[in-house]
C-alpha cells in the first residue's frame, strides 16, 4: 500500500512539474514582433485637426482603413473597433485610428457625423482623411497593405502600433478570435509601456 502511495506521489509530482513548465512556456509565448516604423505622413482628422505620425508617440494605436458608405466587411470592422474602444475606455494611452479610403465622399463633416453615429464620445478615436494618392501611398508603402482598387478593395486588417510609432502586428478585423489576441497584445504593450 505504501509503495503504491509513493509511486502515485511521484507520478503526481512529475505531472505537476511538467504541467508547470508547459504553462510557463505558454504564458511566455506571446511575442509581439517589431515590423517597421510608420513613415512620415500628415492627414486631417474628423475634427479638422492635423494628425501625423508624431501622434503615434506615447500611445498604443489600433489602426484600420475603411469608408463610411461601405457595406462589405467595414460594418463588422467598425463594430469590432467600437468594442475595443469601449473595452479600453479607461486607458488614455490607447487610441484608435480609422483612415478613409474614399476621401471624395468622406469629407471631414461626413466623418464627424459617422463618429457620432457609432458613439465616439472622446478624443481616443480619430477618423482621418487626405487626398486619395497620399492615402494609397501610405497604405501600400507605409503599411504594406494592398491598395489597387480603392475604395472597395481595401484591406480588412487592424494594425497594432506601439508607443514609438512602430508597426508591431496585423490582425483580421472581422475575426472574433483574432480580436481576443489583439486585446491581449494591447494589454501587453500597455503594461510594458507603463513599467
Amino acid at each position, binding site marked *: 500500500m505504501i509503495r503504491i502511495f509513493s509511486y502515485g506521489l511521484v507520478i503526481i509530482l512529475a505531472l*505537476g512539474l511538467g504541467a*508547470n513548465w508547459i504553462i510557463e*512556456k505558454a*504564458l511566455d*509565448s506571446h511575442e509581439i514582433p517589431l515590423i517597421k516604423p510608420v513613415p512620415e505622413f500628415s492627414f486631417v482628422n474628423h475634427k479638422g485637426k492635423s494628425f501625423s505620425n508624431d501622434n503615434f508617440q506615447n500611445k498604443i494605436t489600433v489602426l484600420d482603413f475603411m469608408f463610411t458608405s461601405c457595406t462589405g466587411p467595414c460594418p463588422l470592422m467598425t463594430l469590432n473597433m467600437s468594442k475595443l474602444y469601449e473595452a479600453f475606455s479607461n486607458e488614455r494611452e490607447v487610441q484608435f485610428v480609422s483612415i478613409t479610403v474614399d476621401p471624395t465622399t468622406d469629407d471631414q463633416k461626413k466623418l464627424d457625423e459617422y463618429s457620432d453615429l457609432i458613439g465616439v464620445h472622446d478624443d481616443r478615436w480619430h477618423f482621418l482623411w487626405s487626398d486619395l494618392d497620399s492615402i494609397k501611398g501610405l497604405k501600400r508603402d507605409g503599411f504594406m497593405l494592398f491598395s489597387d482598387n480603392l475604395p472597395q478593395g481595401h484591406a480588412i486588417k487592424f494594425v497594432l502600433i506601439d508607443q514609438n510609432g512602430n508597426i508591431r502586428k496585423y490582425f483580421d478585423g472581422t475575426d472574433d478570435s483574432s480580436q481576443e489576441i489583439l486585446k491581449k497584445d494591447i494589454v501587453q504593450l500597455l503594461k510594458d509601456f507603463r513599467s
Partner: protein
Amino acid sequence: MQLFRNFTLLSTGLTYILIFIGGMVRVAGAGMGCPDWPKCFGRWIPPTSLDQLPDHIDPAKFNLVLAWIEYGNRLFGALVGLSIAITLYLGLKYCSHLPRIKWPLIVAFCLTLFEGWLGSVLVKTVLNPFTITLHLFFALIIVMLLVFVAQEVYYINNTESEIHSKYPVGMKSLFTIMAIILLAEVVLGTEIRGGLEMIRKENPMIDSQFLIDMLGPFKYAHSILGILITILSVINWFVLVKISIKPSSLMVQTSTLVIILILFQIVSGEVLVFLKFMPIIQLFHLWIASWILGLISVQYVAWQRSMITND
C-alpha cells in the same frame, strides 16, 4: 478476460490524465492554439513557421507553443477514445450478458464521441464558457462510468470482496447527494473561472483583486457547497468506518482519502484567491475534484456489492 480487465483500468487512468491535460490547456490559455478542428491550421501536423499557414487563417493566431499544447490534448483525446473503443469491444465480447458492465460502457463510449464533437464546438464558438463547463462535466461522467465498470469487472474474479462487510442500507442516498453536490461544485467552480474571463474580455485591464471582489457571491456559494461536502464526507467516513460492520479496507481507505482530498481542496481554494488564481493550483484544484468523484463511485460500487452478496 484479463485483457478486458487491464483495458478498463487503462481507460480509466488515461481519462484521468486527459482531464488533467484538458485543465492544463485551459489554464495555459491554449484553447484556441489551433483555430480550426480537427486539423491545426489546415494541417495534420501543426505548422512550425508562418509560411506554412493556409491563406484563410489570420497569421496573428499562430503561436507555436499554444498550437502544440492544444494539439497534444487532441492527440491524447484520440488515444483515450481508441482505448475506450477497445474496452467497449472487449466488454461486448466477454460481458455482453452483464448489463451492469455493458450499458455503462456503451454510454461512456457514446459520451466520448460527444466530447470530441463538443471539442469542435469549443473552437467554433471561440471557447464559449458554457460549452467549456459542459465539456468538463461529461468528462467527469465518463470517468465515473469507467471507474464503475473497472470495479465491477474486478469483482467478477474476486467474489470474496465485501462479502463480510455490512453497511447501512440507506447509503445510496448519501453517495448520490455527495456526487450531485460535487458535480454542482465543479460546475460552479468552472463558472467562476469562466466569469473571470468574461469580465476580462470586456475590461482587459481590470485589476485581479477587483475581479475577485466582483465574484464575491459566486465564491460564497462555492464555499457553502464546500462546507456541505466537508460535512457529508465526515458523515460518510463515520458511517462507513465506525457504524458499519467489518468495513473492507477499501472502504476505510477511500473514506479517509476523501476527507484528506477535501482538506486539500479547501486549502488550495483559499490559496487560489490569495495568489490571484495561480494556474498550476487551479489545475490541481480541478483535478483533485475529479478524484473525489471517482472515489465516491468506488464506494458506491463496493456498497452495492456488499448489498448483493449479503442478500
